[in-house]
């Protein structure tokens, strides 16, 4: 589904990713771990087409089609979704309106019929309920005044509604207490289907107790330096990143 080939990315003239390779097939869940500043969010932003992330080399293919020439919204139309590490507040933009616009624009792009508003309200309410997201938040402005956990749940709600082919979750677990983590993990697990691929970005292995990945990759200094299965995450937890850095240097 996703093929990243020899990807190099610069941000403000500084090379952040250099020669990154990754292959993700449908139905798989991959975890990407790495210390702070190693380029995890940069990778996520690059996949979503953020203009600050300039691809200087390599390619990104989603279902054999290069994403590099596509604008951010067109990548979303192709089924890519990014749950952000720091979800943005949108003052004056009603959450429900935002979700309706977003869902309908994606349906339109696929040539599907737009939801009528009653259908949509019911769908959104129902999904919010599963994620234990207070219904009042649907009537508020997007993320405005939401707590950290509410913002993250709002991201997962959008992900559930948009039904992406490839979902990237950037540090969705950070700042959550254990109950919130469980709810979010449940939400994500419900979305694991044979047709969908998920990339979990995290720097704690804690999340992986609740969402079991098929593969674990370690990103250091803009490169994937080690890949393995779930066992790798446990080893990392135990020995820290230095173990790999030292190992890689040796």
């Amino acid at each position, binding site marked *: 589904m996703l093929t990243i080939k020899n990807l190099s990315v610069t941000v403000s003239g500084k090379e952040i990713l250099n020669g990154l390779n990754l292959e993700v097939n449908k139905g798989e869940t991959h975890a990407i771990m790495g210390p702070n500043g190693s380029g995890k969010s940069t990778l996520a932003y690059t996949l979503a087409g953020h203009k600050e992330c300039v691809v200087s080399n390599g390619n990104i293919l989603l279902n054999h089609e290069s994403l590099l020439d596509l604008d951010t*919204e067109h990548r979303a139309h192709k089924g890519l979704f990014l749950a952000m590490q720091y979800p*943005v507040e949108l003052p004056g933009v009603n959450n429900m309106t935002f979700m309706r616009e977003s869902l309908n624009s994606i349906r339109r792009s696929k040539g599907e019929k737009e939801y009528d508003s009653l259908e949509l309200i019911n769908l959104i309410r129902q999904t919010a309920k599963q994620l234990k997201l207070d219904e009042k938040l649907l009537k508020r402005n997007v993320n405005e005044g939401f707590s950290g956990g509410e913002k993250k749940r709002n991201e997962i709600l959008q992900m559930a509604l948009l039904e992406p082919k490839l979902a990237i979750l950037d540090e969705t677990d950070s700042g959550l207490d254990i109950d919130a983590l469980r709810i979010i993990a449940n939400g994500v697990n419900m979305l694991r289907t044979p047709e969908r691929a998920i990339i979990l970005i995290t720097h704690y292995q804690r999340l992986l107790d609740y969402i079991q990945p098929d593969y674990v990759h370690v990103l250091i200094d803009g490169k994937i330096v080690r890949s393995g299965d779930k066992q790798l995450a446990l080893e990392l937890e135990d020995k820290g990143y230095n173990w790999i850095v030292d190992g890689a240097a040796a």
Partner: protein
Amino acid sequence: MIQTKQQQDWLQKIITQAKSHDINCNSILLNKIHSKARQAVMQYPTLTRKQEEWRYNHIDKLFDKNFKLSSGDINLHTIHIHHYLLPSLDTHRLFFVNGRYTTQWSTPFETHDKTNIGCLRDAINQEPKKMIKSISHFNNNELFSDLNMALMDDGAVIHIGDQTKIDKPIEIIYLNINNLNHFDNEINDGITTHCRNIISIGVGSETTIIERFIGENNDQYFHNNHSNIHLDKGAKLKHYRVQEDSQKAFHLSSLSISQQQNSHYESSFISFDSAWSKTNINVDFQGENASCLINGFCVVGNQQITDFHIDVQHNVPSCVSKEHFKSIVYGKGRSVFDGHILVEKQAQHSDAQLKNNNLMLTQDAEVDTKPQLEIYANDVKCSHGTTIGQLDPEQLFYMRSRGLSNTTAYRLLCLGFADEIIKNIDEKKISEHVSKKLVLTLDKQDFH
């Protein structure tokens, strides 16, 4: 010198036309007022870009044009009225075409002894002495107010008696269209029309007034509108004003608002379109515990200039004034805001707040804002704040990552920005109309 001559010639030309129209006017008293104002107009010093008032909104743009005074002798047959009315907005309507009241599209009122809603021409005919007396009291102090007085032959007259509540909003529509007048084939730059409105709300009375300014898409004209508004003790007026003139219009409005004790004036000034637009709002507190809440929102696009000047005078203690104006500017549009609040020494316990927020959608847009507080009393609560910003690229990225097009993202963020003002419009039909108009205006643009 050239400017002086240009101004004098421009004024003289319009006044000469007015004199030829006056043949139809049989009110000696009105003629007197006209001729006094016509003399006054010629005495004003030359307006130039060097004056603060005209520094950003250049007056020569107006004086460069050769406008022809509309005579009121107009042909209404070609007008498709339903283009201009808001469906299912239930109001008492006063409809002006090219500055002249038209009975045809106005909806009649129950006029009783204390309350009179109609047009200036009728009011002068019915009660000449009383009307002329109240008109001659107005202190114009400004070239275009005097010009308005010098040329006025119609306008809205709304007189609400004491302790009266009007069942529906009063709506005033000003439609300006070229080619309705039977002019000789003289070349000109469009018509000019002048309306004078006289509004007074009696003791303890409550009213809503909606004003809408409409023009034909490509017409160029100059509309000069002047309102004198008086709120008696405990009176409440809600005032919604929507300017949707033609793209090429020149629009000048002046409002002098005086407020007695415990009165409350609440308004929203919404402005779209027009090439050149200037609105002067003057509030004069004359009795204690009066309050005004003045909101404004304008969208200023390419080749447009929109200018709001607000002057609030706290002359007496314990009055509250709150102004909040917002603008969205794009292309080479220019938005000018000048807010001045004066708190006199005796006006203790005044509460005065002034806010101006501007959103620039393009690099070439320009905002000139000047909030000023002039405070001579020591026990007051006063504040002002101004912001000029752009849409946050991170917000746009977030929205686009959810599949929204750039245009939709702009639209939602701009609506969000405007919402703070639009939501204060209590007439739902009007607030919906304004939001819709904003969406239409933005969706026509290509933001990238």
